[in-house]
């Protein structure tokens, strides 16, 4: 009896346990499978099946695949005999900057073709800055540069002095010859000589390739031609300072012509000392005199098109004395602040002193080299400089001008604080006081900012030369309404609906707007460019030949045609091509017009010449 029972039960119980065990195992396997699939997908981006993908060879730009299967290069070996370690191209997330991210993804693909294990890695801006600028822990990064009419960065971005921790030269590019030439460049006041030297510098960089300039996009601005006309396509955009002072309403001037502009970001503050935001400056430089971007109009300004330095608030040229390193600047008479008081040399002296006293971060390169300022009379200033530098022309003369009456109180308050600079740069200016063409009226947070015409503007009805023409600053815009939109999509629809008069549009919309008779599109070159910067202290990126080979592999035409749909310019110099005066048009154009095949061959050739080998070769 026991025998029989035992047998059956043991069998049954065992089976039961097996069943339970197998259920558990199955679950485990399913889970493991899920994990592995997941891993596969993310791994696939790292090494996209070199054996299957590479032979197809169709370079993204060339449609016809070549018949002969080209050689596959795998496992790059450095001249030192080591295999090249996997590298990363650090860039921003698509949320922060879709273009940069996509560029990095494709460039990584191209570099893989010569056997480099490379991956594009997206990071948050803060983390990226930390890694690149402070930690200097990177291989290569996709980043952007520009925004200045006078490209000062040609000096500070590449000089050895800026290699220390918080410096700008994060690529750690060292070239003593470049250093001496570039620092000398800063003290060349003669424009033609300076241009010559700048060209020379650019050529040196193009030869050495510490950074590879990629593309600079072309912006498209559409405006409603039934509302305003006479827009000026000037450096830095269409809806700039000069446009707003000169455009005419279509259908006659009335007392209430409102210009409506859509902004994608709400300005952060109206305090000109505490912002680096381009959006904010488009508003601030209408109210104040001077500023940072688009274009600064202070004592001197750049001419609307040619880019010469011409007097604006100042009268006549700067009288610079080489021997004593002093400069005398004369001020126009009768310039009024918005409250009716006169803008005098005292205000300008006050501003410089304020910047120096509080060490306002954004203006240190404007006042850092100024020993002191004297007011000879109400309309004459004398600057004492510690060293001769073009910064005096391009920074100090463009600097914001603050009203002494208003700001002396704020400065007084700041002096009593623990951290005066913080107070000064972060204090809220509810009623900005300037001397610009527009007065501040209202800021409805989250919705709009309203400006109104300053009828007593000193430059009203005066003219500036523009090419062969003259530009009359007749100030027909009675009010400017800056409206804020959360997405470019809604802003474009608002333009179509007539809710705003002008805005930048993506390339996707161009056909749509061209078909609309109410809309006119203007193209203008962006003065920022994207580049890849290498960590020049880390092998193999310290090898110019290696960097040059990588430069050959980048298909800039593809980036222009596909990623930007033709609305961009391939860049071969570190200065945007739109900056025609300073950009050297004769920089070597690595790989221009080559197919991907030829690019790879060229790169391999260079690398072989420099002693690189491949695992797949040996």
């Amino acid at each position: 009896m026991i025998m029989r029972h035992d047998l059956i039960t043991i069998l049954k119980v065992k089976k039961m346990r097996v069943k339970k065990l197998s259920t558990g195992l199955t679950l485990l396997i399913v889970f493991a499978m899920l994990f592995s699939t997941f891993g596969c997908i993310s791994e696939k981006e790292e090494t996209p099946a070199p054996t299957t993908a590479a032979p197809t060879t169709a370079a993204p730009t060339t449609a016809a695949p070549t018949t002969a299967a080209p050689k596959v290069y795998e496992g790059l070996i450095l001249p030192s005999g080591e295999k090249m370690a996997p590298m990363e191209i650090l860039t921003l997330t698509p949320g922060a900057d879709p273009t940069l991210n996509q560029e990095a993804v494709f460039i990584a693909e191209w570099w893989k073709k010569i056997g480099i294990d490379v991956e594009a890695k997206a990071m948050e801006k803060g983390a990226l800055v930390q890694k690149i600028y402070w930690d200097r822990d990177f291989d290569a990064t996709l980043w952007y540069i520009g925004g200045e009419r006078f490209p000062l960065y040609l000096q500070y971005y590449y000089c050895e002095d800026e290699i220390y921790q918080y410096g700008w030269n994060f690529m750690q590019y060292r070239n003593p010859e470049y250093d001496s030439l570039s620092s000398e460049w800063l003290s060349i006041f003669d424009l033609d000589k300076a241009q010559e030297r700048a060209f020379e510098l650019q050529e040196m960089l193009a030869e050495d390739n510490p950074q590879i300039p990629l593309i600079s996009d072309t912006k498209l601005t559409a405006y409603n031609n039934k509302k305003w006309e006479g827009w000026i396509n000037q450096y830095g955009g269409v809806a700039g300072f000069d446009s707003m002072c000169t455009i005419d309403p279509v259908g006659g001037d009335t007392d209430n012509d409102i210009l409506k502009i859509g902004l994608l970001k709400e300005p952060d503050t109206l305090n000109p000392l505490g912002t680096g935001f381009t959006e904010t400056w488009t508003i601030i430089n209408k109210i104040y005199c001077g500023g940072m971007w688009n274009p600064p109009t202070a004592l001197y300004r750049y001419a609307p098109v040619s880019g010469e330095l011409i007097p604006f608030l100042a009268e006549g040229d700067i009288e610079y004395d080489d021997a004593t390193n002093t400069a005398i600047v004369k001020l126009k008479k009768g310039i009024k602040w918005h409250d009716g008081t006169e803008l005098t040399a005292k205000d300008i002296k006050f501003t410089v002193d304020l910047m120096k006293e509080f060490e306002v971060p954004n203006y240190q390169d404007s006042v850092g080299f100024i020993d002191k300022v004297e007011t000879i009379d109400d309309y004459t200033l004398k600057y004492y400089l510690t060293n001769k530098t073009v910064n005096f022309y391009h920074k100090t003369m463009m600097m914001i001008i603050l009203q002494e009456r208003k700001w002396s109180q704020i400065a007084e308050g700041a002096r009593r604080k623990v951290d005066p600079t913080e107070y000064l740069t972060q204090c809220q200016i509810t009623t900005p006081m300037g001397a610009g063409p527009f007065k501040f009226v209202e800021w409805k947070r989250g919705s709009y900012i309203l400006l109104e015409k300053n009828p007593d503007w000193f430059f009203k009805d005066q003219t500036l030369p523009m090419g062969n023409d003259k530009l009359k600053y007749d100030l027909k815009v009675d009010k400017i309404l800056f409206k804020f939109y959360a997405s470019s999509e809604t802003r474009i629809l608002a333009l179509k609906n007539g809710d705003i008069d002008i805005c930048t549009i993506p390339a996707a919309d161009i056909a749509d707007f061209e078909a609309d008779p109410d809309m006119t599109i203007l193209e203008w070159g962006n003065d920022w460019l994207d580049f890849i910067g290498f960590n020049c202290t880390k092998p193999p990126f310290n090898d110019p030949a290696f960097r040059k080979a990588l430069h050959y592999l980048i298909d800039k035409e593809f980036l222009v045609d596909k990623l930007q749909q033709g609305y961009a310019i391939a860049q071969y110099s570190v200065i945007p091509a739109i900056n025609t005066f300073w950009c050297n048009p004769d920089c070597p154009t690595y790989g221009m017009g080559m197919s991907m095949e030829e690019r790879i061959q060229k790169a391999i050739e260079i690398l072989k010449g420099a002693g690189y080998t491949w695992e797949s070769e040996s």
Partner: protein
Amino acid sequence: MKKKKWKLIRQIWDLIRGSTFIKLGVSIIIIFGIMAVFSPIWVNRNPEIYDPIIGVDPDVHGSEGPSLKHPLGTDYIGKDLFSQLLRGSQIAFILGIMVSVLSTTIGTIVGLVAGYYGRIVDIILMRLADIILTLPRLPLLIVISGIFGTQSNWIILLILSFTFWPTISRVIRSQTLSLRERPFIESAKVSGVGNRRIILRHLAPNVLPITFYYLTVTVTGAILVEAGLSFLGFGDPSNMSWGMMLKWCFTTGYVFKAPYWMIPPGLCISALAFSFYLIGVGLEEIVNPRLKKR
């Protein structure tokens, strides 16, 4: 034994057939499952053109509408939208199911332990759950993505699981509290059965129906939250998910111009989320006898 196995499958089949909700849900899921499996086949025909991340069709300029070569058209660079959609279904499935398995497992274990042991264990675990429930989910996800500096599906997976378990563990706990007082648990205790065995063998199987319900419902939540994150720009940039497709459509200015780009991913997100939720509701109708028809 074999007969018994078939019986189980039969039971499942009857379960599916019996409920309209489950029937509908399962059929939608099968469609997406086929899509996910089909993905590599579609892409591998010519990865240079069809890869969802780096494949660009050289013949296409800008975004083009549906054609034979590209059934859903292409995005602004000339990438095939159909292969992106297929890859998206893979990601949605894997992420959704993994998040739900992970968070339901954690939630069930925590709920069982808290409910069974009671006292200080219960207090600590449930306050922890409270705290996590208090932190608003999407902002938390956004902040944590920011903290990691870079975003990847792994981080999203971990964060989602981390924020989904408290709801589940609360329900499981209350269920455990009532189960704990049942005589069969006392009877097991009297027999000298250890705590771990009581939890695993007695309590766990009895909360299984609720666990299954949450297993499906959490998939819905995970799919939707992941899509939302990707849409806001906090997704995994090295991969292509449905939310990411919508995001690209939005940022490149094609939302109102390219319905062939805008509609499919949103529809897929909603449909897959819907199908898992349907199964959950169907299960609830079966599991919760009080919902049965009077």
